[in-house]
């Protein structure tokens, strides 16, 4: 069984996000890390390949400046190889262009029985790329999977819903987007980290993949305004002296809700 996982390399979420005042793009400078929400997809892929009795997990990513540090984390977890699309022409790409690029990268790896992606990234959270990729690849899809099992030529998926979850079946090949938290992503072992350094990662451009126009030129949208939202004013903050619960009771009384 061959599984390809889409991974995003993002700025450390611990550092606050910022827009570049010149371009109004999200700043994505400095060292990038594997988006935690994609580590679940990598883990799920590794488990599915194990359960299938063998196969390969490969990864695809799009990032500026030939950035591979996040991809190396996925390779250290156990993925075998990757394709990185890195191209200054892709700066400013919208979700649709991103999906075109990643779908082409999946095809460059010869396609897969299953393509996995996170439901949305932790920094841009447009959340449309997986389903757009499925359409571009001509695949059926299940989004928001919280568990995935392969049963012969089809998938059994528990799909999160607003009210609970649905059991869904889907024929292979297919694309599935996975939610966080259901599998526990493994920590790369020392051996894995060493091995990851020599695993093949092919770096290609949008033109290599035949995707054009890319970047701002292909985005179909432009940022017309960036404004500060009206700030919500902070109220009273008090230190609990053992009796602060009384302040909450008073506050609720004032609102006439108790």
């Amino acid at each position, binding site marked *: 069984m061959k599984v390809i996982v889409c991974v995003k390399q993002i700025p450390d979420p611990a550092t606050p996000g910022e827009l570049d005042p010149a371009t109004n793009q999200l700043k994505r400078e400095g060292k990038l890390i594997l988006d935690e929400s994609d580590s679940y997809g990598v883990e799920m892929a590794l488990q599915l390949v194990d359960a299938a009795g063998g196969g390969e997990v490969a990864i695809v990513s799009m990032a500026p400046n030939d950035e591979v540090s996040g991809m190396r984390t996925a390779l250290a977890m156990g993925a075998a190889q990757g394709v990185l699309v890195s191209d200054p022409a892709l700066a400013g790409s919208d979700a649709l262009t991103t999906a075109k690029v990643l779908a082409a990268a999946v095809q460059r790896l010869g396609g897969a029985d299953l393509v996995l992606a996170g439901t949305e990234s932790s920094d841009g959270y447009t959340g449309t790329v997986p389903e757009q990729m499925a359409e571009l690849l001509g695949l059926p899809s299940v989004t928001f999977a919280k568990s995935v099992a392969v049963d012969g030529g089809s998938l059994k998926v528990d799909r*999160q819903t607003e009210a609970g979850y649905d059991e869904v079946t889907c024929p292979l090949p297919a694309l599935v987007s996975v939610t966080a938290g259901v599998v526990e992503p493994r920590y790369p072992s020392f051996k894995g980290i060493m091995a990851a350094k020599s695993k093949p990662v092919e770096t290609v451009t949008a033109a290599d993949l035949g995707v054009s126009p890319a970047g701002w030129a292909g985005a179909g949208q432009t940022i017309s305004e960036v404004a500060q939202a009206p700030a919500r004013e*902070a109220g009273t903050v008090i230190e609990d002296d053992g009796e602060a619960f009384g302040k909450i009771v008073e506050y609720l009384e004032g609102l006439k809700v108790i």
Partner: protein
Amino acid sequence: MAISTIWVFAQEANGAPTSGTLELLTKARSLGGSVAAFVGGDASAIAGSLGEYGASTVYATGDLGGALPGVAVASAMKAVIDGGSSPDLVMFPQNYEGRDVMSRLSVKLDRTVLTNSIDIAVDGDTVSATTPVFGGNTLVTATFTGTGPHLVAFRPKSFAAEPAGGGAPEVVSAPVPDLGSTAGAAVTAVHVEESTGPKLDEAAIVVAGGRGLGEAEKFAMVDELASVLKGAAGASRAIVDAGWVPYSMQVGQTGKVVKPNVYIAAGISGATQHMVGMKGSKNIIAINKDAEAPIFGVADLGIVGDVHKVLPKLIEALQARG
């Protein structure tokens, strides 16, 4: 040419249009032009309400037979567009189904999407949508540069739903065409994780717990306070990811958006992801050990203290009042 036709992807729950559907119809009719609702399924139960909120036409695919709506509804939409009835704008709710249908349609039409929007403006041929970023501190407005149909998804509760007193709409059949290699994803069983009390996104009072509770068992305090106040219990993403409580309780960017009269955040630091989902609450009370926690920046009443000490006393005091 201004906007002449707007479609709203309409959803049904328990025999009625969802509140999100009615919000979008209300906004759509204020933008000028004619409004149509597009239903993935049989529309007979909800067509009347859709008309009342401003839809003059209702497209309905008919029963989807359990198929996931994403590719099915998008294909049905594409077929209507290819048939010559193209909208200038399609409005989607920012939820699972809305996002799936919009994504598929975006590829079929080769059009970009704007997501997580909270407002839209139409000025002649120019369509712009506004999205909050960085926890809602910054508002980014993006304008479509290409030709329509423009595709925009809106966060819940972005607009207030108001009936227009419209009459019965024309119902048009929009069957799902052959899906080829993209067919086959289908629901075989539905599981509802029932919670007692009011629904999280409709409750007047929400009590939410976060990582500061320390361990899963302590969430019982949050449940109890919610129950004493006849409200609903919610959670931060951190403890949903940790498996303490089900996803259906998550408040935030990737969970539910709530705007209750009172929101009590217990042991929640106030990550961007969480704030987007609750900042619209009328009154916010926060209890957190860390005086620097961002949640205090939006709280009307902030208690710097240990939730394990404050909550039991608060519950006791409220119970004593009967």
